[in-house]
């Protein structure tokens, strides 16, 4: 680095009285600002993601709740959910790009690898759904229980593997909770499966967001 000042010389703000209370304020402000810049797991984002899932799954449940026999969600509802998924992915990609701009290191490589693993896991559920349809499984399975609950189990297990390998235990717990919500959705009726999974994922994201906000506040809570 080509500096204009020697490292031995005091800087302009050095030597002056720096009140510990001001230090605590600056530390808290700088940490908050940095998190806003780099952290993709902000509590409000989790609540937002959970709300999108709740609304999407809620719409799917609403479109099938009175079906006897079960046929599956309407095409309009499925299209709406897919639009929400595409918007969600676009928003996540934008946030990821913003958070990782000018940042280099092992996390960048891991994030790309994790994205591929999760996408493959999700594609796997679609392939299995096609196989179930091909094998003549009922509409309640092919268009109800399986698409509602299985992605959570399969993608959740993938995320558990990723987060466990990284020893990211809070997210590992979230992944296991997602697997549990998916598992619960496998053992109810086709229509109820959408509701169970939607409410389950929403509850998980809200609990995680509250826990994360509390931990962040506690870490920064200087008297």
């Amino acid at each position, binding site marked *: *680095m080509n*500096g204009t000042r020697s*490292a031995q010389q005091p800087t302009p703000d050095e030597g002056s009285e*720096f009140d510990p209370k001001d230090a605590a304020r600056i530390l808290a402000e700088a940490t908050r600002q940095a998190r806003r810049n*780099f952290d993709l797991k902000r509590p409000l984002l989790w609540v937002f993601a959970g709300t999108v899932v709740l609304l999407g799954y809620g719409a799917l449940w609403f479109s099938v709740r009175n079906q006897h026999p079960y046929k599956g969600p309407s095409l309009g509802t499925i299209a709406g959910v897919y639009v929400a998924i595409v918007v969600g992915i676009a928003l996540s990609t934008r946030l990821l790009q913003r958070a990782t701009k000018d*940042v*280099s290191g092992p996390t960048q490589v891991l994030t790309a690898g994790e994205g591929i693993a999760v996408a493959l896991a999700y594609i796997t559920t679609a392939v299995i759904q096609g196989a179930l349809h091909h094998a003549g499984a009922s509409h309640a399975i092919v268009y109800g229980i399986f698409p509602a609950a299985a992605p959570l189990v399969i993608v959740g297990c993938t995320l558990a593997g990723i987060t466990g390998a990284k020893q990211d235990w809070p997210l590992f717990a979230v992944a296991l909770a997602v697997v549990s919500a998916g598992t619960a959705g496998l053992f109810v009726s086709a229509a109820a499966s959408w509701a169970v999974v939607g409410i389950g994922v929403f509850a998980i994201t809200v609990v995680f967001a509250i826990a994360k906000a509390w931990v962040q506040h506690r870490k920064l809570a200087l008297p």
Partner: protein
Amino acid sequence: MTAGELDPLIHVPARLRIVATLAALPPGNALTFPRLQDITALTPGNLITHLRKLEDAGYISTEKTGNGVASRTTVELTRQGRAALDAYTSALRALLTGL
């Protein structure tokens, strides 16, 4: 505990901002000089001076790649730097509790 016992390398407004910003990145990740300057709102000269002091203490490491206009300097908080910030935060907390 007194304010004089706080790590003097971190207990300076600009350096506290720099270290807190770099600590928000996952360990092993580095930030480019312009982005760090943008976030900390320091002038380039001021930022370089503070970074040099932190680097001399082993709290950060810098890496320069490329030449001329394509050159790029990245800054990373070392393990020692992270430990120093943790110790500073604990000391600050103890100091403020005792006030």
